[in-house]
């Protein structure tokens, strides 16, 4: 495999999050437009200045990124659609970065957003993927909750993790969320509440699950020159990997695609796990957080529960994890759930994270995972962001 070129000269800036809303009468178009506008304003840009546009959304139907160009009055020379769920941000930055490096675009807006109507979740599930329709939904129609319950069951059986181990992740993310004014969840979570929560699909219970909501996240990818000229705080893209349908012969998913390219990630960044100041994992379920912690190289396979046992995962702790509260506590605004970690990481390494700021955050690792097609998540991505210019 060829070693990829570096991402030198490519930066991420103007991180914007809309407030999240449990149910919304508005459309994905509305939410995406709101986030796009917010991000452009942070960079003091107008839509006319945008020549690259990358969209991730589940509820845009019958439109795609194409429809949005006319809807929002954009005329980009570079247009992309990333339907990779929780892995979308990591993939979006790789695409946008290469466009910037080659001069195919000067400023790329990466946006992810979704609405949430009363029936959105059920409709989303009903035609999620062909393999899900044929081979997963007929068996109880438990949706991703059931699919990840199966993985959690196997993970617990193979590696001895307990519900308390998962609980720690959920509880500390809730603590972080309480410092995030945009987070949907506003009350603390105790281990007792976590363990005795309403069962959803054994062994997964209420607090292992994200709350679907409406909202959007956006940031801009551009050149270091461009950002400096406008005096924008920016993060450097130190490394980025993606992999899809890895380890497909594994009977059940206990590891993800990150293991295949993890050396490339660290080599590209010239860093190791101990250099990372905060970790944003894709947290659709705590078992996947553990999987990422292992597969990204923080500990051996199956060792995440032990590894985390003596760590403090809060913003002020020794292993800050999902500093915004993550999807589990801030909410999952559809495809924006795949962006929340990236957008927050940009804030963190540029010193713009306000009440959720990790002190002296210089390097952030953002991991993405998504698209459970049948019985496993197919898409994985990981990015390392480093401080470029502080706010």
């Amino acid at each position, binding site marked *: 495999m060829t070693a990829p070129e570096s991402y030198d000269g490519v930066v991420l800036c103007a991180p914007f999050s809309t407030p999240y809303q449990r149910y919304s009468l508005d459309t994905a178009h509305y939410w995406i437009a709101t986030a796009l506008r917010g991000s452009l304003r942070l960079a003091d840009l107008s839509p006319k200045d945008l020549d690259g546009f990358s969209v991730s959304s589940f509820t845009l139907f019958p439109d795609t990124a194409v429809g949005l160009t006319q809807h929002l009055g954009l005329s980009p020379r570079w247009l992309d659609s990333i339907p990779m769920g929780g892995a979308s941000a990591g993939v979006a930055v790789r695409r946008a970065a290469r466009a910037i490096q080659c001069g195919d675009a000067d400023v790329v807006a990466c946006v992810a957003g979704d609405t949430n109507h009363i029936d959105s*979740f*059920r409709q989303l*599930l*009903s*035609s999620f993927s*062909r*393999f899900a*329709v*044929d*081979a*997963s*939904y*007929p*068996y*109880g*129609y*438990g*949706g991703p*909750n*059931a699919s990840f*319950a*199966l*993985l*959690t*069951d*196997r993970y617990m*059986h193979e590696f001895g993790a307990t519900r308390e181990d998962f609980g720690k992740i959920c509880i500390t993310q809730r603590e972080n969320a309480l410092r995030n004014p945009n987070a949907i969840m506003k009350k603390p979570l105790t281990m007792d509440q976590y363990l005795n929560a*309403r*069962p*959803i*699909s*054994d*062994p*997964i219970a209420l607090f292992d699950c994200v709350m679907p909501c409406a909202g959007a996240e956006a940031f801009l990818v551009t050149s270091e020159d461009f950002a400096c000229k406008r005096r924008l705080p920016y993060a450097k893209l130190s490394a980025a990997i993606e992999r899809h349908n890895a380890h*497909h012969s594994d*009977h*059940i998913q206990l590891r993800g695609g990150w293991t295949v390219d993890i050396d490339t990630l660290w080599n590209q960044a010239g860093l190791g796990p101990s250099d990372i100041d905060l970790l944003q994992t894709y947290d659709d379920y705590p078992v996947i957080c553990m999987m990422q912690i292992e597969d990204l190289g923080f500990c051996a396979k199956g060792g995440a529960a032990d590894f985390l046992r003596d760590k403090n995962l809060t913003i002020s702790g020794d292993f800050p994890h999902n500093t915004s509260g993550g999807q589990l506590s801030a909410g999952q605004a559809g495809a924006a759930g795949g962006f929340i970690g990236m957008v927050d990481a940009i804030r963190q390494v540029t010193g713009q994270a306000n009440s959720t700021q990790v002190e002296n955050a210089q390097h952030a690792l953002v991991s993405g995972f998504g698209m459970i097609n*049948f*019985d496993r998540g197919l898409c994985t991505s990981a990015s390392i962001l480093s401080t470029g210019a502080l706010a």
Partner: protein
Amino acid sequence: MSTPLPRPKKKDPQKRSVAATRPPEMRSRAAMHLTAAAAEGRLVMQCCSECNELLYPPRDACSNCLSTDLSIQDIASGGQLIAETTIHASPRLFFRERLPWRTGTIKLDAGPVILAHVHPDVTKHARVQVEHRLDRAGQGVFLALPEQATPHMEDEPMMRELSANPKHRRIFLTDAKSPHAPALARALLKAGASEIYAGEPESWRPHPNAAVLKDLGVEILPMDVTDEASVRKIAGEIGGKTDILINTAQFMRPGGILSRGDTGFARDELEINYLGLMRLAQAFGPSMCARTADGVNSAVAWVNLLSVGALTNAQPFGAFSASQAGAYSISQALRSEFRSAGLRVMHVFSGPTEEDEWYQQLPPPKVTSNALGRAVVDGLERGLEDVWCGDIAKDFRDRFRRDPKVLERELTMGEDGA
């Protein structure tokens, strides 16, 4: 289950009946090849004909070599339960109404990994026996059962949803005078049917079954499938209590088209085999469809007994075969019309039968009423859709599937001439 399913209490007449809901019905075309096999109770996988890789979920090109030459193969039924979950929340009404529901990941001995319904008696991480059944949406699903059968295994609510089990159900045989009625009644009672009704046409003519059926406790009701008012009347009386309907009404005479000389017997064949079925469906269909979610003794299946002549015309019963083809087509229409309610239409095909005197001149092998009864019960217990009873029926099926035109030729050979 340690205790058998108790007989349901009488229905509270003041309560609203639960309306039918179904598991998801949507499937790709490739997946429906599996459903077709489940309809006959076969456990199959898609297989690449070039590299022999077994593929699941079903797809349109081999994920090993990209060949599009894919076929369906029977596979061994053993597997290992490697992960499981019990679902407590589902947005799909059918499952929501039946929570908690146990499902799991099975590593099949044959190779692929599948998701399946998991029987409550399966212990965690145990070895399992996998069966392929039709669910209430009429689509193929996998079911993981304990390796050794456990007591009252079939009585679990999950099993009741994946079968048309006659246990505790009330069954209507449409013609008490059918030569198969006594054997059917016996087999169904042995399988736990709670009540059997039988329609008796032309009560003004005696027949030997009357005493036999009466001894078995079968309730005889006057009904003639050629008399629209009679069918409606009986449907009005017992339609709401008919959980399984078995259409035993059949008129048959030997003869092709020319040898008959007239359309007299053909009219009777059509009146009874074709129009009779239609009248029954119009009269009993709606009430059965309304009760497919009506508890332990819900309405669950419509059974047609058909000659293999339905598939392809078989002399010396050419005219009769034509009426069977018509009945078969009606049954297929009923499959679509009963589908939304989840009412199963089961065909039991057989070749010549022993007890039907009109087959007297045909050589063996012939199907006995007892064998037919066992086939009906087995089909109901496994929720099958197409049952091939006896060697002739299986032979017809195999030849028809290989090449229907060749079978037509084989069955329409002439006499040796100059």
